[in-house]
């Protein structure tokens, strides 16, 4: 299936993806009326600064069914809520080993980059705003690949193509 792939080396930190995501999940699907809506539309993507890279990158989580990141996490820092399917991260247990990112299709390109630059950091370090977020009703705020849209809003909005919508294996 197709998924949103992140190419962090291209990210300009403009936050366009975030706004586009919130608008895509607003009632009117229009920027100018979305700004006044109640409840406020919520984004599913977050542009996070990675100190070790000295750069920002967009982070978005699908809260995959049988999330691979959860199953590979050696310290059980990542768990999945059986009811909501939400992936939850326990900061205290995380040892920045980066293993989760090696299996997440969205982050694999980042992983390659980090290997190339010799810089070691956990993608999950910065994902708290996305992974652990829930609505007031308690459901996970998760990327739904923009159901009903041909091209996800974040991908469409990204001026530098740091986000691409591409076929990935095994999802």
């Amino acid at each position, binding site marked *: 299936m197709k998924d949103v792939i992140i190419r962090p080396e291209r990210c300009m930190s403009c*936050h366009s993806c975030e*706004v586009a995501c*919130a608008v895509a999940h607003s009632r009117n699907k229009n920027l*100018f009326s979305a700004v006044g809506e109640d409840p406020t539309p919520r984004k599913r993507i977050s542009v996070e600064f990675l100190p070790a890279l000295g750069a920002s990158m967009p982070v978005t989580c699908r809260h995959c069914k049988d999330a691979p990141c959860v199953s590979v996490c050696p310290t059980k820092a990542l768990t999945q809520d059986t009811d909501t399917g939400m992936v939850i991260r326990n900061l205290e247990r995380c040892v920045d080993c980066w293993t989760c990112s090696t299996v997440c299709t969205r982050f694999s390109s980042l992983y390659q980059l980090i290997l190339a630059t010799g810089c070691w950091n956990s993608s999950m370090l910065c994902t708290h705003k996305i992974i652990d977020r829930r609505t007031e009703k308690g459901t996970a705020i998760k990327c739904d690949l923009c159901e009903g849209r041909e091209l996800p809003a974040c991908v469409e909005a990204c001026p530098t193509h740091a986000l691409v919508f591409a076929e990935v294996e095994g999802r």
Partner: protein
Amino acid sequence: MKQTAFEKSIDSASQIMLQKAEDEGIETAWDRYEQQLPQCSFGQLGICCRNCNMGPCRIDPFGEGTEKGICGATADIIVARNLLRMIAAGAAAHSDHARDAVLTFKKMSEGKAGSYRIKDEAKLYSLASEYGISAEEKSREEVAVELASALLSEFGKQEGPILCTKRAPESRLKLWSELGIEPRGIDREIVECMHRTHIGVDNDATHILLHGLRTSLSDGWGGSMIATEIQDVLFGTPEPKKSTVNLGVLSHDKVNVIVHGHEPILSEMIVEAAEDPELLELAEEKGATGINVAGICCTGNETLMRHGTPIAGTFLQQELAVITGAVEAMVVDVQCIMPSLGNLTGCYHTKFISTSPKADFPGTARMEFHEEEAYATAKEIVKAAVENFPNRNLKKVSIPEEKQECMVGFSAEAILKALGGSPAPLIEAIAGGAIKGIGAVVGCNNVKIQHNYGHVNLVKELIKNNVLVVTTGCNAIACAEAGLLVPEAAALAGDGLKGVCEALGIPPVLHMGSCVDISRILVLASAVANSLGVDISDLPAAGAAPEWMSEKAVSIGAYVVSSGVFTVLGTIPPVLGSQAVTALLTKGLDGVIGASFAVEPDPFKAADLMLEHIEGKRKALGLK
């Protein structure tokens, strides 16, 4: 995703050229717009600030992220500051144009610009007396020199008010002075905008916006008005005349010279040079049957109003004119000239000639223009065009057949004259209900709206409902292309308006000139208000800019509203990121200045808003 030629414009000449562009693989503004999509949300909402180098700072419109810039500026402050800078740029553009017109006038009066003459002596003397300059025992030139320096001092003066504001109704003047927004000097207000928006200066949205109104007034009742008046003195006050518009005015067998931009100072000379026997002879030698000057944008409106020179198109038709393959020279001065013309003219034989000391573009042949040698330079330019005629590649030439008759030249003076010398018949028609009110529809084109769709439909809707429309700028050209500027268009008007138009032999839509000539509308509105003994804000009148895009339009919108006229914008200004600023512009201003803005992209709904407003004002005046 890709728009078809039909979706891009409602005008068939433009559609044909857009199709030609596509067939030839030529890129236009519409293609570049598509490549820009989706556009940056922060920019559209006005919540990005680059005013200092701690930034850029952005505000999260959905309240999850940042609420303040690094200095602490909120969305309200950032939006207001950005808007003020837009007004400053717009006022600067109009007023710097005015300054150049006055400087030309000054050089002419000192005998240093021999190509120019005084064409409207009556206006010279009436302006001079407005400025307290006595004409007694002085030569005409001496009066002109004095008037020139008096006008020039309006730019640099520190203590107001700018003199032309005195033309506004008494109650308006009082309101401005109570609010502390009487404009002082033109340059002063613009400079103060830049000062106030520097980091850490003015940080209260209302306070910032009030200065925006003051600056805009220094444009409408200052820069723009001075430009109009002095151009009338130099080139003549427009009178009704016939002409033709649209791409079809380009000629198959004549040398086509397009004058594009905003100032008539050079184009007046070009029009003259195109009749020079020497050049006509040369044209014949080169195989052409003559020289055809056609305008685009407001340079076009200026020569149209005074000489009936045909107009090739609106702002969004500038590229399409070149795409006809029949333009020998695209001669430009300042404002609204797309830098894309450089590449584009390279695909055809067209010479792209830039003339203003202030404005150069990629790929131009530079022929800088100075008043001292005005006619000589104009001749050289036209000569370059004529010599380019044999290079026309006939295989690439395709001129749409569409051209439309129009009746133009309705300066405030001309309108009063048509009415028999006083606004009384117009007022009677309004009071009697034959005419419901006056709609001032102006402004640019914008790729965000189908070319001319907003303009034409809004105006048609208004006249259908017996609203007399006055128009300037690209709206005027759009209306002309749609056949609304002929007396026969009265057939499209409601019965009341139709009757008045037929009796006077005028179109239901009156072309009042270029964008600086919106000052003519202010003068007309003041005349009507004064003779009724009311304020402009009491009149059954409304304004609209259905397809606006430029910063000048922001300044115009602000001074029209500050003058008391409710105004509907057809494209959304970058202010919605601040609820406070939005509320102030769309409601709050009403209580302060007696008018406000509305935003409505749909021209039919926009017309409804204007009609509703006009009805409300009629009721308040006790009219049926």
